[in-house]
């Protein structure tokens, strides 16, 4: 909890201690899980874990690993790193690293019917059909949501989340 508290700190809140951008992004991933509902058939059982897969080169450092100890809606978070978009039956959140920028179109096409929340911090990710794109505006982390992609899936984004997000439509 204390770590999460620190994790959730806005940048510059504690003087003299730099909050890493990765920390904030990890907190965002964790919070997305809280504001989004997956269809029930995407879990094997009530207590099945929530799968958080990282596709491509991992440059999170140690900051993503803290999520392994967390629970979301009574489910444990299982963190996996994969190099190809395969065996995604138990994946619920797929973070696509910037290294996969060139394969993005094929990845998204593959994931289309999988009810997996796609998140990336690459530029214009939401614009290209990703669900949530993390962006940095003047040092402040924010996120974009491609509402059309979201609607085409069976995931349910809470209204609050959408209110906070920047909404992107396919253009």
């Amino acid at each position, binding site marked *: 909890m204390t770590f999460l508290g620190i994790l959730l700190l*806005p940048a510059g809140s504690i003087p003299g201690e730099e909050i890493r951008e990765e920390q904030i992004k990890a907190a*965002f991933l964790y919070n997305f899980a809280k*504001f989004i509902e997956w269809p029930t058939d995407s879990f094997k059982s009530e207590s099945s874990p929530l799968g958080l897969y990282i596709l491509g080169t991992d440059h999170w450092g140690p900051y993503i690993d803290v999520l392994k100890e967390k629970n979301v809606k009574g489910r444990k978070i299982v963190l996996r790193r994969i190099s190809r978009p395969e065996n995604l039956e138990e994946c619920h959140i797929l973070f696509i690293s910037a290294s996969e920028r060139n394969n993005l179109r094929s990845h998204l096409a593959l994931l289309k019917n999988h009810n997996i929340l796609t998140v990336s911090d690459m530029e214009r990710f939401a614009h290209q059909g990703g669900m949530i794109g993390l962006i940095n505006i003047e040092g402040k982390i924010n996120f974009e949501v491609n509402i059309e992609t979201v609607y085409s899936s069976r995931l349910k984004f809470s209204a*609050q989340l959408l*209110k*906070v997000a920047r909404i992107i439509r396919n253009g």
Partner: protein
Amino acid sequence: MSFFQQPQSIRSKLILLTLGISLSALIFTCISYIIYDRITFKQKMVRDLETLSDIIGGNCEAALAFYDPDSAAKTLETLRAEKHILAAAVFNNTNQRFAVYRQKTERQNPLPSTPSKSGYVFQDRALVLFRPIYLENEKLGTIYLHSDLTELDARLTRFLLIVALLISVASLGAYFLASRLQKMVSAPILHLSEVAREISEKQDFSIRAESRGGDETGFLIERFNDMVGQIEERDKALRMTQNELELKYFQLEVQLSERTKAEEALKQARDELESRVVERTADLAKANADLTNEVAEREKTALELERAKEAAEAANQAKSEFLANMSHELRTPLNHIIGFNELVLDKNYGDLNPTQEEFLNDVLQSSRHLLALINDILDLSKVEAGKMELEVSPLYLRSLLESSLIMVKEKAHKHQIKLLTFLEGLPEMIRADERKLKQILYNLLSNALKFTPDGGTVRLECKTIADCGEKPQTWLEEIESRGSNDEIRVTSDEIRDIRNSPSAIRISVSDTGIGLEEKDLERIFEPFEQADNSASRKFQGTGLGLSLSKQMVELHGGRIWAESKGQGQGSVFHFILPVDRN
């Protein structure tokens, strides 16, 4: 307000009572309700504010989760619809202010820089609430709401207005109802009061009050009517009595005037009487003074007499003493005379011729008589000088009597006089002076023999005349009756002496001698007295024996007297001796 003054009529009392009770109940109810409502409304306010904070806080979850204060501020802006929320704030989980809201008009209310503990506080003019914002059991931050209490105050004002209205309406209604309903109670009482006043004013006790019901008031009216009825009857009776009394009063007045006149007359009479009493009193005082003087003189005389008597007694005693001494001095030479005379008469010193013998016999006889005379004088003088004393001792009465007879036996025999004795039922022992008793008996017996002619009879009788313990009355009556016959006077003192004795004996010596005349019955007990002076020559004797006997009997506390039926009829000498048997 006339409400709080003592109301005069029962009507206004009843109305006031009804109004007082109903308004008190109403006011109490209203106040209770207002207090209750205020408490519940405050709770409702808190609940509402909590709900509002939950809604706003919930809407700020994402903003907090994704560090979006602008979104939170927008959410807080929705509070503008809630006029009573003056200020609001959202704090993040590091207790830093994340977003704030202020109603534009409100500037005075400073926002807290850090959140307090979760909960609500009613401040002076505000309700302040802190409530944590949770997302899936993780505290994201705190929401702060500041609500004013205008609604609470407005509600109170509204309530007060309603209550005032209610009370006004209720007062009017209650007054209206009470004015109607009080008649049920007050009308009979007012009627009763009116009737009572009428009766009192007109003094007409025939008026009656109407009774209209079976309740207590109806009962009261019935009782009142009964009482008025009783008063009416008493009034009638009273009037009758008054008339009678007036008549009597008039009569009394007449009587009084008469009596006054009588009293005046009486007073006059009394005044006269008083003046007469005064005169008499003066006379009496004078007589009294005279009497006092006389008494004083008499007393003086009595004193002189007493002195004279004392002097006489002293002289008498001196005489007795002289006689006693003289007798003693006389006896000694006389004894010589008798002694020598007897020696001569015994013819031991030579024969005597008849003439000598006759003369010497005369001398002896005269000498013996002289000796007896002297002895008697001696005894008598002893008695008179108060020197004779009783030597009381126990003695056998019978033997004493018998020995007395022996002393005179020879003389009786010589004159052929019969000696008879009646000595029945005598006490065996008595206490008395033996010598003196013997002397008395001897005197009486020798007297009897002396005055009895030859061939006569002398009788000695002795009996217990009364046992005082058994029948003193008879004995006393015997004496008293005799006293009344003037045969003998027995004084009350003498009777008392006898009566005080336990018992007494009576000794009587009777003879058939010359007897005594009635006038001599007492005189013979005086010294040197005989019934007939001439007798002394014939019968010899000193003339002192009876006198001595009397003295000695009286010394014993007894009594001696003589009885005779006249000359030649014989005489009886009695004496009574109180004897002490013990």
